[in-house]
């Protein structure tokens, strides 16, 4: 756990840089986290981010599969928006916990 300043606001993050309090998140913070990930956010990114936040705040678990079937973005598009590890990157930028894969 650590304090980090994004867009002039101090937030708490995990060792891997995920916000621990989703309500501290703002669009400005998202833009700065995205920069650290080498991404410039567009409206398409924000549509996905807002969808992810909505689902997490409802207590739902996220999977790439369910996001790809959501109608907000397809799996291919999700990879294009957040290249490499889309779920890990997108949740970090969305200010929610890193999804755990359970066995």
């Amino acid at each position, binding site marked *: 756990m650590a304090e980090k300043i994004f867009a002039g606001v101090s937030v708490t993050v995990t060792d891997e840089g995920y916000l621990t309090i989703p309500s501290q998140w703002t669009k400005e913070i998202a833009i700065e986290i995205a920069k650290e990930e080498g991404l410039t956010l567009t409206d398409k990114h924000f549509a996905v981010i807002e969808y992810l936040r909505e689902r997490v705040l409802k207590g739902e678990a996220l*999977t*790439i*599969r*369910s996001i790809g*079937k959501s109608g907000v973005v397809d*799996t*291919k598009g*999700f*990879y294009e928006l957040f*290249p*490499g*590890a889309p779920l890990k990157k997108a949740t970090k930028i969305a200010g929610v916990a890193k999804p*755990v*894969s*359970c*066995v």
Partner: protein
Amino acid sequence: MNKIVILGAGTGGTIMANRLYKSLSKKDWEITIIDNDPIHYYQPGFLFIPFGTYKKKDVLKPKADFIPKGVKFVLNKIDRIDPKTNNVFLDGGDVISYDYLIITTGTHIKPDETPGLMDSLWRKKIFDFYTLEGSLALHEFFKTWQGGTLVSSIAEMPFKCPVAPLEFVFLADEYFTKRGIRDKVKIIYTTPLSGAFTKPKCTLVLGDLLKEKNIEVVTDFYIERIDNDTQTIHSFDGREVKFDVLSFVPVNMGADFISKSGLGDDLNYIPTNKFTLQSEQFENIFILGDTSNIPTSKAGAVVHFASEILTENMLSIFKGETPKAQFDGHANCFIETGFGKAALIDFNYDVEPLRGAFPIPILGPMKLLKPTRINHFGKLAFRWIYWNILLKGRDLPVSTNMSMKGKIVD
């Protein structure tokens, strides 16, 4: 007369039929179990079939042999359930009503969810070992194969028996070594995970073993499609892996009637209270095993532990009490690592697999998270235990909830 209906006569359903039948008065309770397949498959045995260790006859027995005579066994397909009127609708129009329902219909492979999986090479050069037909077909292929690239891939998380594809590549390494062609066989393991396994300590141990056995691991590989013409699998991020033979774990999903009944998530798993094993939606419905969405392994050993908790909770509810027993997600799995050795992992919702001795501290005789011969004999002995103790709902000499005894915490 109170009616209990159990959907699915696999590991979970059979155990529950035995446990409840023993615990309840015959004159007040009627138990019905419904399944569309008369055969009980010893699914852990499918892994050994491609390598000729087990034959078809080693993994089959009639389901009826394991269901108590006083339990009504209905052989039919479930069309849907209506949880508001407490009715189960079967193919052909039969309706069975219940007071309490247990859904334990498991998880099954859905090869048609992956584009290209069931094209021209299906069961010719592309196989699954999660069905008897698939593992038998792969055995026929392996017998005459002279080498090339063997790729073992996982389509989607979660899937049944999360260690099985790892065991598969370990056993393949042994099989081709013994056939004297290991130098002609390249083995590649692809996974959508970022490592060999989900839990950190176990991933390290298994990662080292894979390296030692010269098995290449491709991580974060989320499969988009399979190209049968070029014999390549493609990931969503544009990578590709070529294969001469592909052993594939297709997308796993719960039974179709679950979505038809409006009970499941996007993979047809039913939202379940992970402690009490009650449905999140309906108080008189209980979910056991792979059918549930609880965050632990989809495996028979888990179902066995969970069945003890579920029995206790159902008996409490029948007495008008609130269910008190809490499942901890206990999983206990042998991992075959080849050449007559196996590792053992024991973990739950909160504790990842650790090193140590099992079940008795220091003495073991089994060792956790380390390949040993005695663990391998444990795995082979499990088949006898499965048919003779586990399915019949008898207790195993292992605690229901996980014990920290013998575990080493770093």
